[in-house]
């Protein structure tokens, strides 16, 4: 790492934004992505936002903020990418954007309130999120694509299920 990269790291943010489906690992992604926003514009649901963090390294890169709009896995963005920052994926089941984690301390079913919001809306229905004892939602990490629909629909004010970027 050069001094210049370190300097940039300081002004840029260094955290782990959720990338559109098919994204390669974060380090390579930042080199491959030319910040052209074509994935942003092709997205029919405006799921993909743009990182606006000044003149940092990640500035201008696409990001998904599930609480606002999750990825609905229409798979339109990977073929749109002019570089190979987004690898072409056709099957939504193959996406590995991130992995959902449940906070059992605030998740309603774990407190005796029946809620099936994340389970019902999971696009990998009955596979990525299963209901333990038909009551408690549990994430099957191998199947979870990280689309963030669960985080989006969680009725809790602060979501009890959050998607964390998967680093390969």
């Amino acid at each position, binding site marked *: 790492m050069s001094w210049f990269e370190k300097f*940039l790291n300081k002004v840029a943010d260094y955290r782990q934004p959720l990338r559109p489906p098919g994204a390669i690992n974060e380090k390579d992604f930042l*080199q*491959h992505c030319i910040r*052209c926003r074509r994935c*942003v514009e092709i997205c029919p649901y405006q799921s993909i936002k743009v990182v606006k963090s000044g*003149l940092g*390294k990640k500035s*201008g890169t696409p990001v998904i903020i599930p609480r606002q709009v999750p990825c609905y896995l229409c798979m339109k963005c990977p073929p749109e990418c002019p570089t*190979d920052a987004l690898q072409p994926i056709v099957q939504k089941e193959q996406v590995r954007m991130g992995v959902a984690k449940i906070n059992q301390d605030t998740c309603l079913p774990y407190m005796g309130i029946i809620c099936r919001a994340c389970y019902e809306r999971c696009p990998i229905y009955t596979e990525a999120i299963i209901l333990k004892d038909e009551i408690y939602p549990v994430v099957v990490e191998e199947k979870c694509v990280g689309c963030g629909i669960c985080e989006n629909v969680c009725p809790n004010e602060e979501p009890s299920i959050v998607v964390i970027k998967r680093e390969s």
Partner: protein
Amino acid sequence: MGLKKSKMLSLLFRKRRLIQIGSLIFLIVIPLLNLLNLEVVTGNYYSLRIWKIEFVDPLFALQHLLLTLKFNWQLLMGISIPLLIAFLGGKLFCSFICPYNLLAEWLQKILPAKKTNVFKVNAKRYWAVLIGWIILTVIAGFPILYFVSMPGQIGVFLGDLIFLKVMGVESLMILAVLGIDVVFLKRIWCRELCPVGALLQRFHWNYGLKINYNEIDCVCSTDEIDSPCVQRCPVYLNPKSDPLYPACFNCGECVKECYYYGEALKIKFIKDITNFEPNFKQRKEEQTINKEEA
């Protein structure tokens, strides 16, 4: 070269402003179309897709190659049309498409000042600038020229504003460059610093579109500054001087101006090299520079 072709060319240059404005409107139309989920066009001047035809800014293809050391066919396809245009016409992109240039020219009109000096073109400096940008990219480790590539920056500013309704700090770069460049530094950006132009000019074919000066027809002042063509040039060049490239971006303004005087300036494809002394000289000069670089 037939008459028809030259007529078409002159028509093209006469309608330059219209094309420029169209290019700016195009940037506004793309996000609007995409808001309606009409996926005919996406992108901006970093990378553009019109129906199924891809365009990529060669600068970004270059950065991609430098950073990833991977060859990408899709990118190669994308840069082929821009490079073909650059090959035949030089920095036509700058004069016809680049929205930054349009803004700068408009700003120049608002701030009318008589030109007091012109720039001498030093071809070596252009190499230095381009190599400088390349080195910066490699050190930074990401496509850092994203911030300084004005046509794209304006595109993403408009796109983000219309499509996502957000504005970032990096968009202030446009204002900063515009202010410094037009108000203080006499269009140094477009003429010398812009990495897009610097790269595109590298592909300009020697027999491509160029400004030709015929001294015999010239009826104006011999003074460098006072010539109408010099006063007209948006980037502070003397069209009658030599060398003109790689600084000139073939906007044709000087030719239009000269039309009212002696038609000493013409923009055309060079057919017979011996007829046009300046260009011949320039070519020779470039060859020597190339040798030196090697």
